[in-house]
């Protein structure tokens, strides 16, 4: 209102009188209010009816509502968890936290791998090589048309039909593939390794600073100092030197066959492996299409302009094409990341214990259906909203700044 008053063109202009609501059906404002009251009232009535029924049913079945059950001993066996868990003493609360961690674990690893695979396939579809372009197109077309659940079941049964540990498929004496999953050598972690990781971090910060310094020098003098020797030294030589100075310890804990199963080494369970494989292969097909359309959305003139400036292919891709393509790629990519996270809930079908699987077991054991479903929904809503908030922030970061 105040802006219209401040506009010099409107000084002296007649302002429409403020609309006052009349109690008449011919008044649009009145109609709007009535419709809203009716619709919201109906929804509230429905909610009240359902809640009332639920309460009556719960009392009839002697189920106490509330989250008190979280403190009770769970007694659910959980195959794999990132934090220590003992079904005999630990509570439902801890079991549900493990579910969240397992979901996050498979989603994060899946998102990273699917992005890498999807980008490679998306670029492959644009390759000048006919065979490669056709093969990647076939990959995308086929895998998008098969339900994810079917793919998961396929991988899971395939991994379960692998030979027994005694006849495991092996790569040397280190990696074993059997129906118990994948067995890998595990590095015995010592303090030297921690120091080396610290050195790597220091090296990464140093490389970042050196890169900034190089940019400033380039802007000041027009000559860009070489970055890669410094980066090589900081990122590879420094950590290796720290590790070597501390005695270069390198002990692998090898998996070895004892009786009917393996002992020692790290394990990737068949459930986790099948879920990861299915999610990555399925989502990569969608990401490939997003990457392809993103790259194709940048007009050929951008490449030609870059070449006219005397840039080589690498810098053109990095500095000109990718930043523009990312703008097209990021929003649909976000929804694919969300889809992957939500699709990880199919884990319940192959027995990987994620949020849904553990919540389902919990609600079957305690009868706390409402709380169990509320917990599942709350977890996924939180994850979804966080991912989309982060991606929105990033999207703003790369968005075109318009005048």
């Amino acid at each position: 209102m105040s802006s219209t008053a401040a506009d010099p063109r409107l000084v002296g202009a007649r302002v429409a009188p403020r609309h006052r609501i009349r109690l008449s059906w011919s008044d649009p404002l009145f109609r709007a209010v009535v419709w809203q009251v009716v619709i919201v009232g109906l929804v509230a009535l429905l909610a009240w009816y359902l809640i009332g029924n639920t309460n009556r049913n719960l009392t009839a079945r002697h189920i106490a509502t509330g989250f008190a059950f979280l403190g009770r001993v769970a007694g659910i066996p959980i195959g794999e968890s990132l934090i220590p868990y003992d079904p005999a003493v630990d509570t439902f609360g801890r079991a549900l936290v493990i579910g969240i961690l397992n979901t996050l674990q498979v989603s994060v690893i899946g998102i990273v791998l699917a992005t890498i695979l999807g980008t490679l396939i998306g670029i492959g579809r644009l390759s000048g090589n006919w065979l490669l372009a056709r093969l990647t197109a076939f990959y995308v077309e086929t895998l998008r048309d098969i339900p994810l659940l079917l793919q998961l079941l396929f991988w899971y049964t395939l991994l379960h039909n692998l030979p027994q540990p005694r006849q495991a498929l092996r790569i040397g004496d280190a990696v074993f593939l059997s129906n118990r999953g994948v067995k890998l050598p595990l590095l015995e972690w010592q303090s030297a390794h921690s120091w080396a990781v610290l050195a790597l971090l220091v090296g990464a910060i140093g490389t970042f600073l050196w890169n900034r310094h190089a940019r400033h020098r380039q802007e000041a003098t027009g000559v860009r100092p070489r970055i890669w020797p410094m980066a090589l030294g900081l990122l590879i030589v420094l950590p290796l030197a720290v590790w070597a100075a501390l005695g270069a310890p390198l002990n692998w804990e090898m998996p070895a066959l004892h009786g009917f199963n393996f002992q020692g080494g790290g394990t990737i369970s068949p459930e986790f492996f099948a879920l990861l494989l299915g999610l990555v292969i399925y989502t990569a097909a969608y990401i490939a299409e997003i990457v392809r359309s993103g790259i194709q959305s940048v007009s050929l003139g951008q490449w030609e302009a870059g070449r006219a400036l005397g840039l080589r292919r690498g810098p053109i891709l990095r500095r000109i094409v990718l930043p523009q393509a990312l703008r097209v790629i990021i929003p649909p990519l976000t929804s694919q990341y969300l889809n992957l996270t939500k699709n990880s809930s199919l884990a319940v079908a192959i027995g990987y214990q994620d949020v849904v699987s553990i919540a389902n077991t919990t609600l079957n054991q305690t009868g706390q259906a409402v709380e169990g479903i509320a917990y599942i929904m709350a977890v996924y809503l939180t994850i979804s909203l966080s991912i989309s908030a982060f991606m929105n922030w990033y999207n703003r970061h790369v968005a075109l700044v318009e005048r």
Partner: protein
Amino acid sequence: MSQTAATAEPAYTTARERPPSSIVGPWAWLRANLFSTWLSTAITLLLGYLILRFLVGFIGWAILNAIWSVPYNAQGVPDTATCINAKGTGACWAVIANKYRLILFGRYPFDEQWRPAICVVLFLALYVVSAIRWFWRPVLALIWVATLAAIGVLMWGGMLGLSFVPEDEWGGLPITLILATFGLAFAFPLAVLVALGRRSTKLPAVRMLCVLYVELIRGVPLISLLFMASVMFPLFMPEGVNVDKLLRAQVAIILFAAAYLAEVVRGGLQALPKGQSEAADALGLTYWQKTAFIILPQALRLVIPPLVNTFIGFFKDTSLVLIVGMFDLLMMGKVALSDPPWQSFSTEVYLTLAVVYSAFCFAMSKYSRGLERELGRAHRR
């Protein structure tokens, strides 16, 4: 092709030379598309080797060394010794030959399975009719109602001399098609209403409700809704009211699909120029006249390709009902595999199911792409 065109040229262009073979012809094509650089050549050779090896292996496994049938003993129990011997080198398609009726129609009474078979054909006919542009008019709604009613009569029976078959005996492909099609038929009108509500400026309370509904549903996986339908729905109902499992899952799918479809429809509403709505207002049309005759026909036409893509997603998502214990196509595959003699032949069954699912999805996506091209052409003109 090019040669016949060249010979058909009139005689006075005699001195016309053929382009050099380094530019046209198969040899030049190979050079340009497969062996243009060292890297390209290396990729071609490597991929060519891998594809050939895979194809030879696959054809050997799936066709040449495959077992197509096995002997049965007097009790009808298959003797799978030949299949087990061939494992690893040859596929055992005998499992499909033995189980295809179970996978396709589930536990529907064996002698009555012509009924679900006709239903599948009716569904397919419905899809084909809906895909033809001539039918994009009000009569289509009538066709849908009639066909779905006929399918209901055929599946349930209990009238016209058909014996009654309760829902728990249904299974296989009809369940998948019912969940997808009925889900779509009910979700679509709901989605249009929600999209309109979300766009409404005069009803802020309704808009908030629609936003809440769409964002809530899109933020959670379908499984959580299906679980809700299977464990919480009975709590919602007054005592004594028992809603069938199929119907509960169907409601969950409708609510889920409507949220996603609403976003697609909203995209179409937003893409429509504002002048259309203003012109309708200027003509004195009421809100519903304006929406029904001016806005929706144009907005929906704009979003047909993304709508089809959403349908493809739902068709695949119906397979999730197996997690709440319903006997859809995928579940029947699992059931067939639980038969002891066939337990170790999952690859064959899953491959067959994949072919069925992808046949449906491929047809839809092919159609969507053709439509996109066609509608795009009309737009460019």
